[in-house]
């Protein structure tokens, strides 16, 4: 069993994986409230494989990621036609469906869930985090990362550049779901037990908070957001009842002081001459 510090390290790593899993979608300007559903798919798949089929942990976790990735692509298909609030609603509906599904899935324990999974250690979790970070680092400095930013900033113009937004969105849902599935498998084998309620609404909202708190202009944002907001409660725990207050206050403070999030990617050089001040005249009353 993992000691206290390793336990915190494991949770930080798992939460970073979740934040990155949501970031793939957020970096296209899309939103999802259903990502915890992919986590449930990964957690249950990996757990059934280790408990019932005696698979070793790592292949089981990878298989959980793969199955979640397929689920992500399937959810991504209808999501292609939806925007913002409609997409949030649809992904939330998917989350509720997974919860009901696993509650009635008797082979996987139904409402009482599964127990007996073990084996997640910090080095394993952080190996996955490192692999994911390497992936996002490579994408972020490539044309693919630029295309993501373009879709987020102005989707119609991105399409005029020849960016296949349909493919990018499907890819984003699938890769994000793989990361959520891996996070789920690792979490299941850390917690020793899982139940459907573990992957409910609050599990869906937390990664959204981490990503917004950390910022979406670079993958370092979600990493920082998940790390800070996972460690913070541990640090302020001695304050007992005040801990939620401090948690909430720091969220509000960051949103006021840095609405773009903790970490913002700086682009370009600042103006050296005076022409930076000559902003194009915008249509009267066009302030948005």
């Amino acid at each position, binding site marked *: 069993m993992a000691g206290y510090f390793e336990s915190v390290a494991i949770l930080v790593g798992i939460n970073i994986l979740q934040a990155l899993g949501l970031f793939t979608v957020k970096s296209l300007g899309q939103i999802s409230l259903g990502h915890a559903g992919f986590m449930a798919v990964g957690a249950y798949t990996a757990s059934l494989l280790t408990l019932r089929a005696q698979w070793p942990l790592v292949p089981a976790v990878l298989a959980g990621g793969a199955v979640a990735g397929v689920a992500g692509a399937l959810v991504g298909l209808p999501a292609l036609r939806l925007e913002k609030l409609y997409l949030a609603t649809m992904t939330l509906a998917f989350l509720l469906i997974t919860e009901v599904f696993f509650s009635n899935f008797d082979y996987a324990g139904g409402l009482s869930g599964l127990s007996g999974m073990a084996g997640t250690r910090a080095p394993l979790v952080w190996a996955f985090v490192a692999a994911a970070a390497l992936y996002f680092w*490579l*994408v972020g*400095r*490539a*044309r*693919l*990362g*630029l*295309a993501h*930013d*373009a879709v987020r*900033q*102005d989707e*119609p*113009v*991105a*399409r*005029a*550049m*020849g*960016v*296949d*937004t349909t493919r990018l969105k499907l*890819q984003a849902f699938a890769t994000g779901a793989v990361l959520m599935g891996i996070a789920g498998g690792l979490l299941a084998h850390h917690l020793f037990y899982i139940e459907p309620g573990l992957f409910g609404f609050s599990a869906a909202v937390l990664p959204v908070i981490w990503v917004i708190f950390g910022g979406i202009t670079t993958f370092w944002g979600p990493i920082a957001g998940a790390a800070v907001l996972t460690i913070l409660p541990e640090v302020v725990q001695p304050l007992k009842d005040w801990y939620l207050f401090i948690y909430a206050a720091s969220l509000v403070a960051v949103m006021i002081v840095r609405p773009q999030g903790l970490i913002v990617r700086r*682009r*370009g*050089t600042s*103006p050296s001459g005076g*022409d*930076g001040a*000559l*902003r*194009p*005249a915008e249509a009267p009353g066009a302030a948005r």
Partner: protein
Amino acid sequence: MPAAAEAILQITGLTVRFGGVKAVDQVDLAVSPHTIHAVIGPNGAGKTTLFNAVTGFVAPTAARVWFAGREITRLPPETRTRRGLARTFQGVRLFREMTVLENVLLGQHARVPSGVAAAFGYGRGRDLRARGEAVAILESLGLTSLRDRVAGTLPLGVQRRIEIARAMASQPQLLLLDEPTAGMSAGEKMALCDQIRGLRERHFTVLLIEHDMRVVMGVSDRVTTLNFGRKIAEGAPEDVRNDPRVIEAYLGSEE
């Protein structure tokens, strides 16, 4: 009129209806390769709607559109770009938070490996060559010193040039420019006219929407005039300028 088969862009019977309004009504248009073809007309004549229908931003009510010998009537915008169309937008739509160079790199998206494999190094040679070309395009439009500046902070005239650079970066067979000189000073307009003429020398084909008659007369090989969604005149610039229907359309709507 050259034979239709030679046209790089061929539109027949284009009608676009918004509710009860016919923004474009039964328009035929043929653009010959390596020419500058201007579309003029008073406000609301349907020029931008015509552009949007050609680039796939608006679904036409009726039309057949051929580009480089293949029909593109129902293709989505990104596929048309891959086939060799590129456009600028009325009122400039750069990626404002990106640098000038990043905007131009995005213009190359369709013709350079840009997927996951490319992030892992696939097609690195082509990628580097394209980056060199992007720098060269900036150079040719006098934008080299601004390459690392954030696009949204630059003056409007400069932004329009960046938008043209971004459109050129896809190496299009047909470049559609929507009011490229709007809001520019006389000096900026003359400079841009030179650059548009330079495009023709470099074997681009240009379809141009323009309000300024001096610009139209200065750069165009052929001019099509629209009014209330219909084509009312077409021909060489000097013929169109003296066409009584064109004069009436302008005076009738602007007075």
